[in-house]
């Protein structure tokens, strides 16, 4: 016997939670699936059969744009920091994306922690949803995760005919589940779907040798240097900061930025140490496959396949890893 929650009960439970928490869940409209915060009455909008969202849940901790604080020009200026008033629940986080958040944690929660990120992170509970039908581009199993990996969520739901097997992971979700309509039932855990493997082992070691290989320029030939890959990535976290003055207020704003955009490394005076297409593209892979691992231990990739799906010119991390491995020796 395992603890199971039926689809109907799940929705009514979320309906309850919505009264107390900000509930964020996958919703599909205009042909794109995105995480949206929904009210109790809107739970039916939730897309339970989504494969994965176009944009990762990182947005909820690291929004595309957030005001960090505001300075009001009174007689003496006063600083009003941004804060989160309501606790949040993210429903339907895929294990790969949960891992993405964990990877960002490494960078943002390492002391001195990023307060704005930390606050949101602490006030949020992740309800994971195991993958039954992964996308053909997925390769989470090759980068240390799996379709039903509970490691980085607070609660994992595994879909079965009988309903969702609830797998409690953290205390955080225990009290969340109190009074939740979870029943004992016969439910067989479905066998994990198998994924194509990508030879990611020891990639860092090869990366450290091939920095100057012309390969990067060749790949960059077709790169158009949009920021799509970085913005859909569940674990890319570069940003830009700027101050806004309007109506007597000064607001410090931070927004997403990407190493692929032209101005990213431009310095005062206009010089850009990373001005060539190749050097910019290379930076992306070196951060993911060498610098981040060197600093935090893990490859900065969750195998979610988003960049592979959305790249306008099919720059495919799986191909890159394969090619780099071939450069060994």
């Amino acid at each position, binding site marked *: 016997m395992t603890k199971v929650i039926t689809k109907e009960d799940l929705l009514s439970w979320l309906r309850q939670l919505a009264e107390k928490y900000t509930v964020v869940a996958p919703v599909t409209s205009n042909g794109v699936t995105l995480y949206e915060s929904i009210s109790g009455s809107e739970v039916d909008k939730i897309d339970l059969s989504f494969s994965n969202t176009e944009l990762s849940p990182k947005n909820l901790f690291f929004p595309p744009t957030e005001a960090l604080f505001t300075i009001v020009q009174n007689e003496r200026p006063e600083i009003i920091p941004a804060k989160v008033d309501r606790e949040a629940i993210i429903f339907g986080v895929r294990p790969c994306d949960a891992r993405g958040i964990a990877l960002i944690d490494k960078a943002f929660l390492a002391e001195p922690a990023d307060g704005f990120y930390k606050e949101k992170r602490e006030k949020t509970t992740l309800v994971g949803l195991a993958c039954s039908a992964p996308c053909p581009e997925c390769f989470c199993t090759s980068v240390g995760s799996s379709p039903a990996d509970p490691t980085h969520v607070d609660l994992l739901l595994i879909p079965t005919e009988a309903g969702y097997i609830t797998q409690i992971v953290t205390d955080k979700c225990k009290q969340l589940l109190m009074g939740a309509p979870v029943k004992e039932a016969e439910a067989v855990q479905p066998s994990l779907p198998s994924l194509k493997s990508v030879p990611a082992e020891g990639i860092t070691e090869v990366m450290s040798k091939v920095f100057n290989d012309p390969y990067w320029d060749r790949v960059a030939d077709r790169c158009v240097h949009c920021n799509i890959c970085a913005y859909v990535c569940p674990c890319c976290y570069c940003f830009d900061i700027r101050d806004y003055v309007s*109506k*007597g207020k000064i607001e410090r704003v931070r927004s997403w930025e990407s190493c692929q955009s032209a101005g990213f490394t431009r310095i005062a005076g206009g010089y850009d140490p990373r001005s060539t297409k190749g050097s910019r593209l290379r930076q992306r892979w070196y951060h993911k496959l060498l610098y981040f691992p060197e600093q935090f231990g893990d490859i900065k990739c969750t195998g979610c396949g988003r960049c592979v799906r959305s790249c306008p010119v099919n720059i495919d991390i799986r191909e890159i890893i394969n090619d780099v491995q071939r450069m060994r020796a």
Partner: protein
Amino acid sequence: MARIGVFVCHCGTNIAGTVDVTKVVEVIKKLPMVVLATDSKYTCSEPGQASIREAIIENNLNRVVIASCSPRMHEATFRRTVASTGLNPYLLEIANIREQCSWVHSDDKEVATAKAIEIIKMAVSKVIRHEPLFPTQVEITKRALIIGGGITGIQAALDIANAGYEVVVVEREPSIGGRMSQLDKTFPTLDCSACILTPKMVDLGQHPKIKLMTYAEVKKVKGFVGNFEAEILQKARKVDHLKCTGCGTCWQKCPQKILSQFDLGLGKRTAIYIPFAQAVPPKPVIDVSICRYIKYLNWVATGQEGKKPPECRICEKLCPTGAITWDQEEELITEKFGAVVVATGYQTYDHSHYQEYGGGAYPDVISGLQLERLMSASGPTGGEVIRPSDGAHPKTVAFVCCVGSRDQQKGRPYCSKVCCMYTAKHAIMLREHDPEIQCYIFYIDVRTGGKDFEEFYLRAIDEAGVIYIKGRPSKIYRDGKKLKILGEDALIGRPVEIAADLVVLATGMEPSIGADELARILNASYDTYNFMVEAHPKLRPVETQTDGVFVAGACVGPRDIPECVAHGGAAAAKVSALFSQDTLTTDPLIAVVNQARCIGCLLCVAICPFKAISYEVTRDKRLIAVVNESLCKGCGLCMASCRPKAVDLRGFTNQQILDEVNSLWL
């Protein structure tokens, strides 16, 4: 860091009566970078300006905002005020709180005050971004190009040359003189045209400061006021004018003849020719289109097809100085100039467009200018007036006015101004030639606006017994040896029919052929009839929109000789005034290109109305736009069309306009 001083003017009660100046000052004081805000009764008065000067020095201000009347009123004044303290005059901004605030909101002081504050805020946000600007100096080439060697061009050339400056006169015909040289006598004084013109022609030909280029055309002009560069095409004369003495043997002996353009087809000239006896230079050119030997050379060159032309070369054999040079080719000469005077004059309307008047098919229906040639002592008939068809002496002559003038149907709605008078002149002169001649003149109105013109017209009626018939004839047709003119006397409302021996059409004026092309070359504008357009019809009659390019004479519109002479002189005066300076000062409020941003799409090059933007290639092979500071007038068309904002306008930069807008929501 900007240190801004804001001076709010009461303008007596003009501003203070409506705007609460004290309140304005209070608010403005608080703005960032404003170190001083104060008010004064009359900012523009001497004490007012004095207090600004003191304030600038005392508070060591580096930006000044004056909230007062319109910048169109006192910007210049206050720039001088600011400059007198050693501060750059372009670090000033005017906030217009009178014309555009107090005067239009006198009904609501509160609203007016609030608006005044916002207007000043805008000015403050703009002045912060002002930069010191410095007018640039450009050298002037003190050399004038006169296009057209008619009476206008001659007058202009002589006046400029006599003022001590070099002149180059370009005339496309083999001789200068223009239309006036074709005239017999001039109205209303009836003095001989040649007698008053030729001395001037000779003066010009011999003037040490004037270089005369006949049989030449201006092909290209680039550059700007003070620094034009013109490409002039010297057509091949096949005669070396340095050797030629103009003895005339060649053109007397040349066997190849053709109808003379100068005599308007009434006489003949030879292949090697001077257009008329008093031509300047008095040296011939060879008309390669008919010269027998040239024909022969072409025949050889093109593989000897067809009949072999004679190897004439008579002129060469007879020439005492061996001036004939068959190998002389046309050449492109480039000259530098500081100013250009366009004096390309006019041509008469081609009456063959008038089918109702025979469409040029009747030899005895001639134009006024043709009659001039017939009456001229140096003309094809030696001054004897005869019918082109049979050489008979006409006894009845009918004149038709407004042919190619005041005629919508023919696309010539304008009045050619001179026809009324020259027709009267013709009638009077014909009577002098032969007292038995009876003249009839068909007219729409007789226009005699000019000194002694009306008297001259009356003289035609009283002394020459000319009969004036009001109305445009409907038809002219041949009837035996006579020409029948059908019309209606509009005054008595009866049809009239005149049987004449000779009909003279008073054809109107139209710009010389190619005037529009020349205008394009000079980037000057021209109207629908291809007359040049002056910069201002009243106040700048000889200037054009293009600095340094002047227009004079009949190329601007129908004019008579004294007017043309006056205009030639006027243009000369303008040119001399320009040349009296050593350098030109250019306004610094012009476009500048940020070369790092320019993507070389060259949209601005296409758009610039003043051809002020060209492009060059950088070391890294990039195309970039380049602004010519002397040509740029600072209109800002280019920056509005520049996608990456690579070009900007000093004094009205993108940043400044944006800041002005922004300031409204700060």
